[in-house]
């Protein structure tokens, strides 16, 4: 029987993979993908907790919807920033993004 622990371990794995992607990648869009994976893992956690600890309520679902909204807003603004930088410097490589450094 599949219990809460199984889902939490899967979500933890997804979160770790997303974190690795966000930290290790050089392409800014790949970093955004890593962040999306992490947010998804969090959603999975919310829904799993809701299903097993308070099945009669939908509090976890409410949280998950808010996370999805934030993820959508984040990806739209993030990609707009990446596009803006690319238009000026013809690069999406975060190791070239050093104009704030002196």
């Amino acid at each position, binding site marked *: 029987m599949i219990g809460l622990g199984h889902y939490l371990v899967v979500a933890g794995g997804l*979160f770790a993979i997303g974190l690795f992607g966000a930290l290790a*990648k050089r392409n800014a*869009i790949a970093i955004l993908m890593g962040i999306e994976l992490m947010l*998804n893992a969090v959603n999975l956690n919310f829904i799993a907790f809701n299903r097993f600890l308070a099945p009669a309520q939908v509090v976890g679902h409410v949280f998950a919807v808010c996370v999805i909204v934030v993820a959508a*807003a984040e*990806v739209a603004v993030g990609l707009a920033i990446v*596009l*803006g930088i690319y238009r000026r410097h013809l*690069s999406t490589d975060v190791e070239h993004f050093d104009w704030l450094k002196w």
Partner: protein
Amino acid sequence: MSGFTLQGILANVYETGAFWLLSLVALGAALAVVGLKNIVHSAFSLVLSFVAMAGLFMLLEADFLAMVQLLVYAGAISILLVFAIMLTRRPEGKMQESNPFGRYALPAGLVAFFLFLAIAALVLRVSWVSGPGVPAASTVGPLAEAFLTTYVVPLEVAAILLLVALVGAIMLAGGGKR
């Protein structure tokens, strides 16, 4: 043909198999997102990961959220990502090396790996007990009620956030200049 409902499917022995299959696909596709060298391939495996996760939501009897996951992540966010990739092709255009690892790949890998070990160890140490009650047959009604009564402020905040992000994204992408 209506004898078999979704709950009927989920109640039987396939649940375990479906869980393992979906989580393996989700995790494998997520690894491919990080590991593949071609960023377009990464983006498409991200879609696969999202779809598998929608299946996991379905297993958790979150039917509404599974559909929202498909609609928002697989249908919109990933498309947006692919669009951005296509708009930011490098001048030399080498897709094979478009998604390289950075300088900190090794420490990042170690951090992520030990984070996963810590999470897994903690989760497996706890003996989880199921809470009282049974899940509702459909989450759409209860979710709507929760959003329009108890959680009406978060709903409005989320709506404003989306509006602000929409305007901000258009301005940042250069639509406001002309």
